[in-house]
């Protein structure tokens, strides 16, 4: 299973965060985290 992940990235508590896009491939039979 191939997925596109839109993940919230934020370096510091006071810093402005943003969504970044990643691709993951061959995901199967596992849990989310």
């Amino acid at each position, binding site marked *: 299973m191939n997925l596109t992940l839109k993940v919230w990235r934020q370096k510091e*508590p006071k810093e402005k965060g943003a969504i970044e896009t990643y691709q993951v491939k061959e995901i199967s039979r596992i*849990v*989310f985290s």
Partner: protein
Amino acid sequence: MLDVLNNQLIESGKEPVAFDHDCREGICGMCSLYINGEAHGPGDGVTTCQLHMRSFKDGETIYIEPFRAKAFPVVKDLVVDRSAFDRIMAAGGFISVNTSGNTQDANALPIQKEHADKAFDAATCIGCGACVATCKNSSAMLFVSAKVSQLSLLPQGEVEAQQRVLNMVHQMDKEGFGNCTNTGACEVECPKGISLENIARMNREYMKAAAEN
């Protein structure tokens, strides 16, 4: 799955995604995440660490965000500071037991079956904060009421019940959690199925304690 992503990021020299996890079997309350607009993602009665990837389809786009609430500030990426819950617990989420050697055997105290069952159900709250993240007001009423109920329903917790509810609610308000408007979203998204009945119980106890103290 997030480990797979992080391995990819590390191998390509990029910063891995910070996220909370610990037991990875749905009992510690460390994992969080807002997945496709739902606390702990799709599926009933599961935490993020119990969420199987079979819940998603090949080619799907998944949005992963931290729990959002004023009282849960983002520390980094998907990690939020949930120490407000610890401070609420420190304000009253305990019972005082004399440990001088004359401690009462808990099993020797008769407890109504109905009360024991309700206390046990309340005690299954793992303090993950999904209720807060889901609530439009970022209210922590479900969490606090579960802790209040768990203790006040049992004889060991009755002694300090009034002061406990006053102190815990006071701390909850101080931490910046919002008010409860009874939408019931918290109960729907709670991975442990904590009932709104606990909020009703806490409100009754709070009103009684406030009137008598």
